[in-house]
């Protein structure tokens, strides 16, 4: 679906707001973006992706999500220096709130940025039939993993592990999780990964690509360790990372910013709807015949958390 002219202007306005705010954060609070990161390019590719992104009811998120939440999601993307074109982040709608989530490429990028001593973060899935041994030395886990191409089967996952290595290829951080632990983590996600019978909900990324999502979960756990033990040189970045983590798991954030923040409804002042049926002839206007109506205006007085801090 091609965006209308209005939508294009709206998006350009959001983009401008985000860029202005980023400039301000750079000047006033010492936000340092990665040297090779171009916010405008990231915003343009985000726009292309958002045009195609649907919510769980198969509606375009740009229609259903509030502009404030779109701006906030794009802000978090730029602050964390993530590129949607490189699949470092993706966008998910929780109700009318657009949220930016980091993929494991994104978690990796953020970790390498925060801790320049690290060279790489690697994650692997352990499948049935693999030879996997885990030993602990000085409190650090070390893994030996032998796999075969034929073992790769997303229905037979035993677990996953991730390691962070420095420039000498020494393992500095390591983390492993059993599939049970991973599933427990998924249950905490706001996405509704599991159905009422405990199976993976079809249509979720977790059901489609369980292996990749296992890597993401274990990398995220490792990332938490790296991020929480790094110094606070870049507070704006750390605040943003924390908000992204909370947005995925914590519902209080949405309540605090959205509940009781909308417009006041006084029944005497509300406009009257056109009658649903033709009163004289009694002819029914069926849903198909009716013109599509625009969605209700976004609630006024919404606050973007972190915008004023």
């Amino acid at each position, binding site marked *: 679906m091609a965006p209308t002219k209005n939508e294009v202007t709206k998006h350009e306005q959001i983009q401008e707001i985000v860029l202005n705010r980023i400039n301000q954060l750079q000047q006033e609070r010492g936000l340092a973006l990665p040297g090779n990161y171009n916010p405008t390019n990231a915003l343009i590719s985000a726009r292309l992706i958002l045009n195609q992104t649907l919510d769980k*009811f198969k509606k375009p998120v740009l229609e259903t999500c509030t502009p404030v939440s779109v701006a906030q999601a794009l802000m978090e993307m730029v602050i964390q220096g993530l590129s949607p074109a490189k699949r470092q982040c993706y966008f998910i709608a929780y109700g009318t709130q657009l949220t930016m989530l980091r993929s494991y490429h994104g978690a990796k990028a953020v970790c390498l940025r925060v801790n320049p001593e690290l060279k790489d973060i690697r994650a692997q899935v352990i499948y049935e039939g693999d030879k996997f041994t885990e030993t602990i030395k000085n409190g650090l886990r070390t893994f030996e993993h032998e796999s075969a191409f034929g073992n790769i089967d997303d229905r037979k996952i035993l677990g996953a592990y991730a390691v962070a290595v420095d420039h000498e290829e020494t393992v500095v951080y390591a983390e492993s999780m059993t599939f049970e632990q991973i599933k427990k983590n998924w249950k905490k996600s706001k996405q509704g990964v599991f159905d009422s019978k405990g199976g993976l909900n079809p249509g979720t990324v977790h059901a489609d690509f369980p292996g990749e999502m296992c890597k993401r979960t274990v990398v995220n756990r490792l990332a938490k360790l790296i991020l929480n033990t790094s110094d606070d040189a870049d507070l704006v970045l750390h605040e943003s990372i924390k908000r992204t983590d909370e947005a995925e798991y914590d519902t209080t954030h*949405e309540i605090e910013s959205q*509940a009781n923040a909308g*417009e006041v*409804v006084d*029944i005497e002042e509300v406009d009257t*709807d056109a009658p649903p049926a033709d009163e004289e002839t009694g002819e029914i206007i069926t*849903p198909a015949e009716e013109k599509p*109506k625009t969605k209700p*205006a976004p609630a006024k007085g919404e606050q973007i958390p972190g915008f004023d801090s």
Partner: protein
Amino acid sequence: MIEFTSYASGSTGNLYKVTSDTCSLMIEAGVSMLNIFRVYDYKVSSIAGALISHSHSDHCRAINGVMKLGIDCYMTRETASDLKFEQEHRLKIITPMKKFSVDRFQVVAFPTIHDCPGSVGFLISDGDDKLLYATDTFYISNKFKGLTIIAIECNWSEETWNPDIDLGLKRRIESTHLSLEVVKDFLTANDLRKVREIHLLHMSNSNSNAEYFKTEIQKLTGKPVLVD
């Protein structure tokens, strides 16, 4: 003067009656037709219309039966598109945040946050009283003026979780149903000066405590609280 009565409330079925003088409205139709007949003592001609908040079956199980009785059923387009109708001429599509009339009642539907597209709550006035009806929602975004009766979901609380609950289900409830804590915030954020009664609806079977919820809301508001 509006009288609000709850006949069934919760995830097994919902049916509420709003009466003003001789005229009455039905909210939800999530019980069997037999129960609807019993509630209205078979005098269904007094029902001016039925308001349906969303398309989950505990809220609209009997929709086709109700339509067959010749009762206009009001719902949003998204709700209607999720349901199968045997006949459509009793279907009235409503738009959130636009006022419509059903007999002597004026009604405005406002959006709620639930895992169901097009879900709404209702603000109902008979010119005298103003009733707020809101259930199956994560929180309420709007604020309201001059309410006299509040009928609001109070499904769960941080204090009353069943320790054996499945984590996935807990996650779902947490972001689709009103908690005691969020209800308290809502009541604090709105002007309650004219409110004369508060009904707590849609309590979870295993994650709520009616007496505790009632006491907490009474302590906060000083208004009569009814647990339906």
